[in-house]
Every structure is written in C-alpha cells, then in structure tokens.
C-alpha cells in the first residue's frame, strides 16, 4: 500500500508545531498503525532526520499509551479499538492520513504526538480508590456482590485511562474517564464508604485541572476503545447530585 501521512511535528512543549508530510510506498495491510509508524521512523533515522515521537507500551490494547488522533478520530476509524490494535487494512491504497496529538489544555504536548497525561493521575488521587485495612487478605466470600453489579463494575473497570474521551469531546471534558472510575468503585460494596465524597472530589479535581464541563454530547463513548457506556456519566451525576444536596465533604 502507498500511504501519505500528515503528522503533527513539534520539537518540544514550547515550540510551535506544524503538520509535516511523509510518503510511504511499502506499507503492508497486516501492519498495525504503530508498526507503520515504526517503518516511517526507521526511514527517518536512516535519512538522519528526527523520528516521530509517539507513546506506546503494551501494543495489545490494555495500557492506554498509544494516544493519537487519526483523521479527526481518537484511535482511528475502527470502533472499540486502540491505535496499536488498528490495522492498515482499514485504510485504502493511496490514502492520506492525518495524525495529531490529543488536544486539551490539561494534556500539554511534550513532543510530536506525546502528551503529558498525568492530569488523570491527579483525578485518581482525588478519589479513585477504596480504603482497605492492612493485614491479611479478607476471605473472598465474606462480602457478597450481586452478579449485575459485579458485571457492570467490571465493564467500567476496563477503562485503560487512554484519554481518547477527552480528545474527542468538543468540551475537552474528562467526564467519561471519571465516570468509569466512579461507576467501577461505586457499584461494589468495598467502594460504599467513600461513594459520595469520591464523586464530588474527583469532579472538583477535574474542573480544577481545566478539563471542560460535560454537556452529554456523547463523542467520548463513540471513540472509547473499551466501550465505556455514556450512561456511566449519569451514575456519576447521580452521586454528585446526592452529595451536593447532602453537603458531603471529603476532609
């Protein structure tokens, strides 16, 4: 396959970036998108040019590193699929593909396609945990969990923190990410003690970090590689409403 790439190149956080054009003549349709970028980078290195920086780690769709917006869609055209699991057969011979970093004030570009996503860690620190006493592990059957809650909590727990939801959202909101965590922990008995304070604390942190406010557009759920449902945001809202009326506070 012959592919023309237009990739966002930016030397460092302060530099002004721009789209740069590259032509590849020998792309195999069985290559993953990242392998295609590896081929480009080998070529650039041989030519003595600076290779394109991009994040990647597991390359099997579970770490959430491979952040890039492909033709205007985070993680590209394939539903429920991370960039590393996207294959070139989903493109046509002769295609031009635009590749850009996540765009959000809370995710500043470090270099090329690499962004600093530590803002998500701060949201987790604000409430994405359960308090467990130290000591020997409790007996697994001591706390029963009904099947529906266990399944729904597990589905929410599949969020890999990739940030595609933020990248797609016209408001630049991290609501789907935060809602996935609140749903995951709030459905389980172990998560009940902090249920209300978790929702308002994580939301307050997200607001403070300059993520946008959610207006239920639904772009996040369309691009989420893990299929986190939009309705999880309703669960977050439900907990926030309860906490707001009750005046819950975290300290």
């Amino acid at each position, binding site marked *: 396959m012959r592919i023309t790439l237009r990739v966002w190149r930016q030397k460092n956080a302060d530099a002004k970036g721009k789209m740069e054009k590259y032509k590849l003549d020998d792309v195999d349709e069985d290559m993953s998108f990242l392998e295609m970028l590896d081929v480009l980078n080998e070529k650039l290195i041989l030519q003595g040019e600076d290779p394109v920086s991009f994040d990647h780690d597991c390359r099997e769709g579970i770490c959430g590193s491979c952040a890039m917006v492909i033709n205007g869609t985070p993680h590209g055209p394939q539903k429920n699929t991370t960039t590393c699991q996207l294959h070139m057969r989903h493109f046509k011979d002769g295609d031009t593909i635009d590749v850009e970093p996540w765009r959000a004030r809370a995710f500043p570009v470090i270099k090329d396609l690499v962004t600093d996503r530590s803002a998500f860690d701060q949201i987790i620190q604000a409430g994405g945990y359960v308090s467990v006493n130290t000591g020997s592990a409790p007996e697994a059957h001591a706390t029963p969990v009904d099947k529906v809650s266990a399944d729904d909590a597990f589905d929410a727990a599949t969020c890999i923190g990739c940030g595609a939801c933020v990248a797609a959202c016209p408001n630049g909101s991290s609501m789907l990410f935060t809602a996935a965590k609140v749903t995951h922990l709030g459905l389980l008995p172990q998560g009940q003690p902090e249920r209300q304070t978790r929702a308002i604390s994580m939301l307050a942190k997200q607001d403070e970090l300059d993520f946008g406010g959610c207006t239920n557009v639904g772009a996040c759920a369309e691009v989420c590689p893990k299929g986190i449902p*939009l309705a999880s945001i309703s669960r977050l809202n439900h907990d926030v409403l309860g906490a707001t009326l009750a005046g819950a506070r975290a300290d």
Partner: protein
Amino acid sequence: MVLTQQRNIVTRTWGSSVGKKFVMAVTGVIFLLYVIAHMIGNLKIFFGQETFDAYSEHLRTLGAEIFGYEGVLWIIRVVLLASVVLHMAAAFSLWYKAKRARPVGYQHKGHQGSYAARTMRWGGVIIALFVIWHILDLTLGTVNPDPAGGAYAKLVASFDRPIVAIFYIVAMVALSFHISHGLWSGIQTLGGNSAVKQHALKSFSIVVGVVIAVGFAIIPVSVMFGLVR
C-alpha cells in the same frame, strides 16, 4: 464518612460543572412545561377568533380573585425570566470553560456526537433571539402590523408576512433540535439514564421535540395557506 455541611448549597451547586448542569436541567424542565402549555393554548386558534381572544383574556383573569388581574401571568413571566437568566448563565459559563479546555484545535476536525448535541449553544442563542422578537411581535405588538389588535388579529397580521412565518418555522426547527437533545441530556444530568434505558429515552426526547415543533409550526403554515384568517 462524616456528612457535614460544606459552604452553602448555592455555592456548592454553582461551584461545579455538574452543578451548573443541574441548574440547566431544572430550568429546562420549566421551559418544557411552559412550551407544552403554550402550544396547547395556541392550538385554540383553530377554534376561531372568539375562542382564541377569550383564551387570551382568560390567561389574564386566571386566579384574579387571589393574585389580581394578570397576576398569574406575571408570576409565570417572572419564573420564566429567572429561568432564562440562570439557563443562559450556566450555558455561557460551560461554553467559556470548553473554550479554555482546548486552546489548540485539530487540523482534521472530527464529527463525533449528534447534530442536535453539537448545535445546542448556537441553537439556544437562535431561540433566545426568536423569543425576544416574538414578545415584541405578539405580546407588545411593537413590530406587529396590527399593534392595537387582539391576540388573534395580531397573530394573523404577523404571519401574513411570509418572511416572518418562515422565520417562525425555522425557529421551531431549532427548538425541536434543542428539545430533542436537551430533554434526554437533562434526564442524564439528573441521574436518570442507564445503559438499558438510553435508547428509549433518546427516542422519546426526539418525539417530544418533533411533536412540539409541529404543534407550533402548524399555525404559521395555516395562516400562510389561508386556513386561518
């Protein structure tokens, strides 16, 4: 967990992005109830001038023994005006926050999210401008060809101008989009959505939006085609 009061409920609500959405959802419900009542009232136009003008007068004498002439109408006006102010303040605050959240945009623009969802802000501005025009036209009569006429006469005189009738119909299309997304969005904001119910709730909201738009738009259309004179 200890539940203690933090700040007061007003700052607690207005201080978070979701709290602002609660305000938009509640004021949105007020608009929706008003618009439905207003639409049903307007349809009395098909029962003739006498019925319609009597209805307009009835709105003013409604509850007059307790609240005085136009008392109930003024209560409704004040509640609606306060709702508009709150609804718009929250909307502009979230609009500003969204602009701030993405200082650098994409070269290749994506199109995720429905058309109705993506046009809520400009659609809302169009509806607000329409409402201003609408009050000047049919309530105050300032921009009406028959300012001294009764409710029925003003309405017919206004829609006898094709441009005005078409403007009304366009505004109703904008309103229908606004409600189609807004009703579902409000339910989601108030915590009433779930993965199982979502499809049904979205469809219901679209039906409500379309029914309301058709219920309003049928009047200028009828005047244009001479069914209401």
